[in-house]
Each structure stands twice: as structure tokens, then as C-alpha cells.
């Protein structure tokens, strides 16, 4: 067991030149077989490994990552954490996760810098406000905090928003979730990796899965760039590239990959206190702990694996952000980046068994997977440990698309490009 991180060990380290630091996780050679193989070392895969070991006592687990852990969408999101969804299946799953977020730094002995600063959806007209009130009611029925704010209350929290009646997008109110906020995305992957490693999980980087080992309708292991590894159960956890990896097993998924972009400005003094989002427009604004204003908008709406987006989409998100918060126009953009998202055909994730025995799928997170990291890991670990879905992920089965039980928060039907 590693020495826990603490203020005391830091102080003691100060006396001997901080020489006590050790690698946060091992770099093991893959063994020939494991009880559970998790494909994908992002936040979700690492969280799954951690909860398999911690909650289910299954420690003979490998996490296979083709490059470095947390280098995919875990490192490319806008770090927002919230559970303010209208549909009960979604808000119950995300709320379970939000509760885990609140205790995560203590649980992992790793500062994930979770900052519950409040996240608000703005309403720009009567229709928006009715929708927001309905959403808030639905959340409160399940014990999740939600509060409608008047423009006066919003002005107190975010004085830089344009609350005038002459605004391009007038602000009539907002729905805020105070327990929502942001976290340090890399730290989440590193924290789960370190804690899972300490429990005996092998985290194997630079190990790409190139095929599956099959025995009839059962997957019994994977072929990788570092040799064949056998597994009792194999879990795909590679959102963004789920279609690719599932395709190696001959599965065709209800997923289309699209680019989602984000951007950050130069660092400035505190100017955005909470997370400000508009779903009628589709932009979201928050300020990182370093001071940069982090913004994002719509996906590019056509299939791509390129990890580079169309500038006009970023331009659109910036135009929206500047119109609701004009002071942003004075900032200089530092950089933009993009990730490949698994756009599922109802906008909700897929966590559960596949038609192939021994093979499980966790993917389809669309543009909202980061916030779900702990809930995704918890429910996927349960599924991989028991072979059955946890009650929270039971609605998110792969069959739901064929049975018509889709979970379509935005009600646009099977068109990922219209979401």
C-alpha cells in the first residue's frame, strides 16, 4: 500500500527535498489472463476498475489503454459536473454520480478539485421558463436540488450577464443546481488510476486492442499490440471509438462519432462565479481555477474521427457566449480543441451486456460523459461483476433501441446529427 497523500507527508517531504514522491501507479507487463479486462483507460474505465476492486473485491483486473490514461475525452471535456436532467432515468444516474463526486477527493485520497459552485440553465422566454420549471419539478420529485432564479437573483450571482431587455437573447430567469460545478478532469483519471492500482488492478498503457478471442458466441479475451490477454469478462469502455472496438467483435452499434469542440481564453481574475449554460442557444461558460474562461457549444453535426473541428461551430458558440455576457468579447482566445464523441441514437448512454456472451459495452455518452464518471464506473463495475445491470443502468441497455424504450431527453428521435 502506498503512503497516503497528506499535508503531513508534504511537510515532512519539505524537510528532505520532496524526495519521498513515488510513481502514482505501477507500469506492469500484461499477464496472460485476468478475471475482467476493461478496454479503455479513461476516467470511466479506471473508475470501473476501482469499483470492481473496492466494492466487489475483484482485483484481478486489467485496464488496457492504447495510448496514455486520461488522454482521450477525459482530457478534452469542459469539466462540468451536474445532474439536472428532466428524465428520471438520466437524473437518477447522474445524481448518484454527483453524490460520489462530493466525496471523491476523500475517497480516492487525491484532490480532484471538485468545486460545487452551482450550474444554471438560462431561460430566454416564457417557453424556456415553463420547461425549466418542469425540469426543476421533475428533479425535486426525486430529491435533487433545483431552484428557479429571477433575473434579480441572477444579477447578484453573475453581474456580467446582459440582463437588459434590449439584449439579443433576453434573460427571463434560470434554473440553478447549487450542488453542481466543475472538477479537475485529469485528476479524476489519475486519482482513480492510483486508487485502483493500490488495490491490485493492472493499468497497462500503450496497449491497443486489435481483435477479440472468440469461442462460439463467447468472447474469451483480446488480441493486443502487446500479445493475447484472456479474460473472464471483457468490457468495452472507449466512448468516442465504441463503434470501432465493437466492430472488431462484429457488432454494429446505435452510435455515430462526431466532433465536439471547446475553447479556453487567457486567464483573468474571477468574472464567472458559477457555470452558465443556455440550452435554447447551446453554449456553456465557466471559469477554470487558473482563470481561463472555458466555453463550448454544439457538436459539428456530421460524422468525423478527426479530432479537429470546423471553425464556424466554435465561432457560433463564442457569438452566443458574447451575446449573453458581453464582457467576454474583450478576452483573447488561448486555444481550441476537440474530441470524438459517441453520439448515441437517443442521446443517452449505453451500459450493459451485448448480444455476445462475455462482452459488455459502456459507451454512447454523447457530449456529456465526464460528469457521469463515478456513476458510470460504479454501475459498469456492478454489471461486469455480476453479469447483470445495476438498477441505475438497467434502462440504458443496448436492446432499448430495438424495443422502443429509448431515453430521449431532447426528443429528436434517431438522428444524432439533429441533437
Amino acid at each position: 500500500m502506498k503512503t497516503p497523500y497528506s499535508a503531513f507527508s508534504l511537510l515532512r517531504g519539505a524537510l528532505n527535498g520532496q524526495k519521498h514522491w513515488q510513481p502514482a501507479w505501477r507500469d506492469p507487463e500484461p499477464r496472460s489472463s485476468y478475471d475482467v479486462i476493461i478496454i479503455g483507460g479513461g476516467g470511466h474505465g479506471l473508475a470501473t476498475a476501482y469499483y470492481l476492486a473496492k466494492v466487489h473485491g475483484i482485483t484481478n483486473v486489467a485496464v488496457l489503454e492504447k495510448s496514455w490514461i486520461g488522454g482521450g475525452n477525459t482530457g478534452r471535456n469542459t469539466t462540468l459536473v451536474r445532474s439536472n436532467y428532466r428524465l428520471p432515468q438520466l437524473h437518477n444516474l447522474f445524481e448518484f454520480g454527483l453524490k460520489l463526486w462530493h466525496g471523491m477527493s476523500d475517497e480516492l485520497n487525491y484532490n480532484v478539485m471538485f468545486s460545487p459552485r452551482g450550474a444554471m440553465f438560462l431561460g430566454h422566454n416564457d417557453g424556456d421558463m415553463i420547461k425549466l420549471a418542469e425540469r426543476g419539478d421533475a428533479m425535486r420529485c426525486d430529491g435533487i436540488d433545483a431552484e428557479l432564479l429571477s433575473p434579480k437573483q441572477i444579477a447578484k450571482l453573475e453581474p456580467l450577464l446582459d440582463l437588459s431587455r434590449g439584449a439579443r437573447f433576453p434573460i427571463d430567469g434560470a434554473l440553478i443546481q447549487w450542488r453542481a460545478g466543475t472538477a479537475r478532469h485529469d485528476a479524476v483519471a489519475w486519482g482513480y488510476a492510483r486508487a485502483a492500482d493500490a488495490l491490485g488492478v493492472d493499468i497497462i498503457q500503450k496497449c491497443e486492442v486489435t481483435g477479440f478471442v472468440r469461442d462460439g458466441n463467447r468472447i474469451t479475451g483480446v488480441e493486443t499490440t502487446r500479445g493475447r490477454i484472456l479474460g473472464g469478462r471483457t468490457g468495452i469502455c472507449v466512448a468516442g471509438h465504441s463503434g470501432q472496438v465493437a466492430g472488431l467483435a462484429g457488432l454494429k452499434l446505435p452510435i455515430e462519432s462526431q466532433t465536439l469542440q471547446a475553447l479556453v481564453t487567457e486567464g483573468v481574475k474571477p468574472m464567472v462565479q458559477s457555470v452558465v449554460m443556455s440550452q435554447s442557444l447551446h453554449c456553456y461558460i465557466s471559469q477554470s481555477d487558473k482563470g481561463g474562461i472555458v466555453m463550448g457549444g454544439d457538436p459539428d453535426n456530421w460524422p468525423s474521427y478527426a479530432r479537429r473541428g470546423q471553425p464556424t461551430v466554435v465561432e457560433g458558440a463564442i457569438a452566443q457566449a458574447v451575446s449573453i455576457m458581453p464582457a467576454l468579447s474583450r478576452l483573447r482566445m488561448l486555444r481550441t480543441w476537440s474530441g470524438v464523441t459517441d453520439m448515441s441514437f437517443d442521446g443517452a448512454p449505453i451500459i450493459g451486456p451485448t448480444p455476445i456472451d462475455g462482452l459488455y459495452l459502456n459507451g454512447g455518452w454523447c457530449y456529456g460523459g465526464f460528469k457521469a464518471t463515478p456513476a458510470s464506473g460504479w454501475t459498469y463495475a456492478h454489471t461486469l461483476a455480476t453479469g447483470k445491470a445495476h438498477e441505475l443502468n438497467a434502462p440504458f441497455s443496448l436492446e432499448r433501441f430495438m424495443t422502443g424504450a429509448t431515453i430521449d431527453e431532447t426528443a429528436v428521435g434517431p438522428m444524432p446529427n439533429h441533437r
Partner: protein
Amino acid sequence: MYEIACPHCGPRAQTEFTYERTVDAVVDPAADAHTAMQALFTRANPMGLDEEIWRHTYGCRAWMVLTRHRVTHVIEAVKAIGPEALA
């Protein structure tokens, strides 16, 4: 952003076009329920070339099929479809 050579208007900015779905996702009215659901709800989603239906929505509004690479974004072919293509 790139250019798409509309079969009717010539090269235009990609922002004038919208993506609809892949060719194999067009539901045959005669298909049985399972085949129709497969077409509606699943995609091959290759990390390479696929045949996609696009529309010149903010232009002549005609439909077309693009053979487009999903990593390089290179468009190998644009084919007109619909009554215009037959005329």
C-alpha cells in the same frame, strides 16, 4: 471547413450543406420490422470512407451522396440523387 462540389451549383462552402444519414441507413419501405429498425438505429461508423447523404440545404436544396473519409475529410466522390439526377 471544406468545400463540397454540389452537382448542381459547383463548389460551395461546407456550411451551406447539412448531413442527413448514411446510405445504408435509408429504410426500405418493404423491409421487415427488424431490418427497418437496424437501418434506423445502427451505423457501421467506420474510421474511413463511408457513403453519406448530404443536402445543399442553404443552396439549391438538392440531395446528394458523398463518399467521404471520416479522418482526413477528403471527399472522393459526389453523386446527385433524386429526380434531378434522373432528368
